[in-house]
């Protein structure tokens, strides 16, 4: 399979072509541009599978395709010259992500036929062009072989997200949600950019892999005990790592930059499924996994990642409990789940984090698409209190949604259980040594309860009980283009866990941790980018409660117990023909949660109460001092101009006199300097 990697650029380029085609001819095409998108993403999916097969056969690909800028600056570590390139890096991680992204993109394109086209939306070419551009950017981000290229496409997916959230730009809320998403993520990306610059300036390279990668350079610098910009190398790696993490926190909607994601639900549900659940939001986590070697060098950064992840997992899960809008519940659950992934990566559970990333992509896309189906069925009603009883009227939607919900809640044996359990297990064994991680673990564990609760609250309110509105009694039928993607993802949500049955492997001693082997480079891999290589860099100590098996059982048992109790509580409260809201029982805490812990309020205060006065002051300074200087200069210049032109009297004799004077002055000055007299 030597030559297949030559076709790798096409994975990203297919959707780009679709974007161009749809943009140019979308209005004239049948289905308003859906077909080019489906064909392109289908092509990307096939090629991605080929790439994955190639990696499985023991290959990997790392190639620089184009150098677009080069400079001769010397970096802090003494590397001469820095060049910025576009290149491809296809290793097990990238290949896996390629398959996930292109699969979800393909399914979402198909789903859009039923969700957008069949519902008679206008502006569809714009929608499909946006999807195409997004898919291109996301795939290019996944295969990026250096940090700057990753940053470029990281920004581009942000732009597409902005465009697609604001798809219904005539409404009031969508444009403002789009702006919010753009600004909040941009706030994080700002740190990311500084981080890129800092890394380039420090190590003279931004490559992810190879001998001249910044990861290797950082390792050398730490081993050599170098001083970088006045810090010792370890501290500097932490600082730059945290700067890059700023972008991750914005994009993956981690606390405190998570506020944009619930608002982003203003976009079409398909967009929410693709961008704000399965792929773009995953970009942040993927980036951490991509440069995991770098983070592994800095225990401080890892601990911060783990803690932020654990906190976000719990924090978002509590907010999901009180939401009435089906998409809002899913949005908070997304934030919460990405918190788990961060927790997993932060405790060194590289495989666990990536495993959950994959599972979550499938079951969350499924849930969003299921929610989309429900919304179609409900004639665009999103309030769960107006639903109910859809179980019998839309069985395909119900059972697939249920599969996704079970996976999300972490019920054995659905896929979400395996990956979440592995994360919590990894956190536990590290946490027994490190109190900070223990705290993160505790929060993650507690979040399992809330996850189970809000998930089944959602399921019961939506599908069970009696119909609570007229539309719920008379649902809108859905077509195959909605059902087919649901079925595909439903199957995946059930079975994807097989990829890495770590607890079973540990308990039964069978070798069935396929994903771990995959990421550990037992097939194809790039040197240094494997689980084992990362493990060597990690500074974590681990210990067990009793033996390994006991620890596995304790961890799994605890999380299952909490998941079941959460689900059970939801069953008790809401699985009735006529459920009622129980929010008021929470008292003042409920109010705080309903208002999302006043996160939006304090951010608005930061903007209006702090930034705005500062901006006003700066503006005043600019208007008076700066403009004053500028205007003064201009007035002085014009005045000077008026004086100087008066030299030109129009009388030729004066000119002669001035010429002679000029020569004499020059003569005197030069003669004096030269000593002629």
């Amino acid at each position, binding site marked *: 399979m030597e030559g297949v990697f030559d076709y790798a650029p096409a994975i990203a380029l297919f959707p780009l072509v679709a974007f161009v085609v749809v943009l140019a001819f979308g209005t004239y095409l049948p289905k308003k541009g859906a077909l080019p998108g489906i064909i392109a993403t289908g092509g990307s999916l096939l090629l991605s599978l080929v790439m994955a097969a190639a990696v499985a056969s023991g290959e990997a690909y790392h190639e620089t395709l184009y150098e677009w800028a080069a400079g001769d600056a010397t970096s802090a570590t003494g590397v001469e010259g820095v060049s910025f390139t576009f290149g491809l890096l296809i290793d097990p991680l990238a290949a896996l992500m390629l398959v996930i992204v292109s699969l979800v993109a393909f399914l979402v394109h198909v789903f859009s036929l039923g969700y957008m086209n069949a519902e008679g939306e206008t502006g569809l070419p714009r929608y499909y062009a946006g999807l195409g551009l997004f898919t291109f950017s996301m795939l290019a981000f996944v295969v990026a072989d250096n940090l700057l290229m990753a940053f470029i496409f990281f920004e581009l997916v942000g732009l597409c997200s902005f465009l697609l959230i604001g798809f219904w730009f005539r409404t009031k809320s969508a444009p403002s949600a789009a702006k919010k998403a753009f600004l909040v993520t941009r706030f994080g990306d700002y740190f990311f950019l500084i981080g890129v610059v800092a890394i380039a300036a420090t190590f003279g390279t931004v490559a992810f892999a190879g001998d001249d990668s910044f990861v290797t350079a950082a390792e050398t610098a730490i081993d050599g005990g170098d001083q970088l910009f006045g810090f010792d190398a370890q501290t500097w790696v932490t600082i730059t790592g945290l700067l890059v993490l700023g972008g991750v926190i914005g994009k993956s909607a981690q606390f405190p930059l998570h506020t944009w994601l619930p608002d982003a639900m203003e976009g079409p549900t398909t967009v929410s499924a693709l961008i704000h659940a399965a792929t773009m939001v995953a970009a942040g986590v993927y980036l951490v996994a991509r440069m995991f070697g770098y983070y592994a060098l800095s225990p401080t950064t890892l601990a911060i990642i783990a803690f932020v992840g654990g906190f976000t997992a719990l924090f978002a899960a509590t907010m999901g409990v009180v939401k009435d809008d089906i998409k809002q519940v899913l949005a908070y659950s997304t934030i919460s789940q990405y918190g788990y992934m961060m927790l997993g990566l932060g405790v060194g559970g590289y495989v666990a984090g990536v495993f959950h990333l994959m599972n979550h992509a499938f079951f969350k896309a499924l849930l969003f698409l299921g929610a989309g189906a429900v919304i179609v069925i409900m004639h665009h009603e999103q309030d769960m209190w107006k639903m109910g009883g859809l179980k019998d009227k839309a069985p395909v939607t119900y059972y697939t949604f249920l599969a996704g919900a079970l996976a999300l809640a972490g019920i054995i044996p659905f896929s979400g259980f395996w990956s979440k359990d592995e994360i919590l297990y990894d956190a536990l064994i590290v946490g027994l040594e490190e109190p900070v991680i223990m705290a993160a673990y505790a929060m993650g564990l507690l979040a399992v309860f809330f996850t189970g609760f809000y998930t089944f609250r959602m399921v019961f309110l939506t599908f069970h009980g009696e119909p609570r509105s007229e539309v719920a009694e008379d649902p809108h039928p859905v077509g195959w283009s909605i059902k087919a993607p649901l079925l595909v993802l439903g199957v995946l949500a059930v079975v994807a866990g097989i990829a890495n049955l770590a607890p079973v492997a540990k308990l039964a001693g069978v070798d069935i941790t396929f994903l771990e082997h995959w990421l550990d480079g037992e097939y194809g891999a790039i040197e240094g980018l494997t689980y084992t290589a990362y493990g060597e860099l990690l500074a974590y100590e681990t210990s067990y409660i009793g033996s390994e098996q006991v620890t596995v059982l304790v961890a799994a048992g605890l999380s299952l117990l909490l998941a079941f109790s959460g689900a059970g509580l939801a069953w008790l409260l809401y699985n009735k023909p006529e459920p009622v809201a129980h929010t008021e029982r929470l008292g003042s805490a409920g109010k705080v949660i309903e208002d999302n812990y006043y996160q939006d309020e304090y951010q608005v205060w930061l903007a209006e109460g702090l930034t705005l006065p500062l901006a006003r002051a700066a503006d005043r300074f600019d208007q008076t001092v700066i403009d004053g200087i500028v205007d003064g200069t201009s007035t002085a210049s014009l005045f000077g101009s008026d004086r100087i032109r008066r030299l030109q009297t129009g009388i*030729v004799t004066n000119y002669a006199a001035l010429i002679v004077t000029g020569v004499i002055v020059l003569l005197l000055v030069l003669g004096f300097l030269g000593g002629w007299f």
Partner: protein
Amino acid sequence: MEPIQLPEWTALGPALLLAATAIALFVVDSISPRSTNRNVLAGIATTGSLAALGVAVWFSMAGVGATGVDGFGVIELFDGQFVVDQLALYFMIIVAVVTALVVVASYDYMAGHTYQAEYYSLVLLAATGMATMAAANSLVTIFIALELASLPSYALVSILKDNRGSVEAGLKYFLVGALSSAIFLYGISLVYGATGYLQLGNIASVIEAGDAAAYDGLLGLGILFLIGGIAFKTASVPFHFWAPEAYEGAPAPISAFLSSASKAAGFVIAFRVFTEAFPLEATAGVIGIDWTVAFVALAIVTMTVGNFAAATQDNVKRMLAYSSIGHAGYALIGLAGLSADGGELVMGAAMMHLLVYGFMNTGAFLFVALAEHWGVGRTFEDYNGLGRRAPVACFALAIFMFSLAGIPPLGGFWSKYFLFSSALEAGLLVVAAALVINSALSLYYYSRLVKAVWIEDPVLERDALTQPTGLYAAIVVAAVMTVVLLPGFGPVVDTALEAAAAIV
């Protein structure tokens, strides 16, 4: 290596072709004295100037005067009175380009004028003088070539005999010119007195041998007076006083001709005289002072005076005249920076600027010619709203203005950028700062003109404007060259730097 070996004197081909064209025009004029057959006259003049341009480009490409492996080496003629090297050819190209543009544009501008043949032959004679200046290698030939360029120019400026402005301009130009050339000649006589030679190389060897050491005052004064003569030709302070009036009063194509070609010719003798005849260190040893100091001062004062005076002009042509003085100041940096290590870079940058300037400034003046042809008036207000009536020409004007101001990505930006960076490299911080400040100021008045033609509403409604072929053609060619000189900037840069490096 060439299949045909041309005789050596053909190296002066471009200048000779220009002279031959002038003579051909005389012949035509003497056959039918009152002829105003513009097609024949302008045709001959255009053909001649384009032929000169072609030959100059051909020679330059073929390596005539180049000292490299595949060059023919520097060609010296008449015992070294003339020298044809890369520098000479480079400036011959500038002169020929400007001449061709001006001649083409004059086809329409001079319509209905009585002195057609005289006009064209004077233009070509002046061009011959300028081209000869590029190759002159002795103070004798330099002076004669300079006069050959100047005398027809005086007549050309005042060729509109019934126009008071034209006559006044001619008078002032002539009087200041006569004074300057007298000073220049006196300078030559002093240098001759100090060294005993008029040929540049010989002067240098006398100075280097230290034989002129006894005449430090004489030599210093002579050099100062030479600077004066050159400053007149390049319209630099304090010999710039003729320029605003001459450019304003003269027929606009002649203003273009004088401010581009004549200025370039002034710079070529400056470059040659000061690099060939007065080697820096040896001369400094005699006169006790580095002569670049004078050019540093002149450059700063010239660009400042030119730009500041231009800023508040109401008359477009006069604004361009002052801006032309400002650009002379920029080009003077080429001489000011010679004392430093990267001297040839600075001079190469100045040469690039002169070439780009040859297009953009000529184009700008030709636009004024077009406006005069239309009879729309002379002030900024009169130009208001021309963009709607003549979009092509006004677009070209915008290109010229932004290029003159040094806005990327136009040619003027690059040449100024090279000037700036090489001046910094040569350590001329003050000069570089003055360049930036003056460029910033210049943007003010250049953009004022663009604003007038494109944004302001016309004061009066005007009828449709004619589209004279010749003027339009010249303007469009100049505009295109201003833009495309950028992609072709690589070769231009190389040629200029090589030419500069060869003589520094």
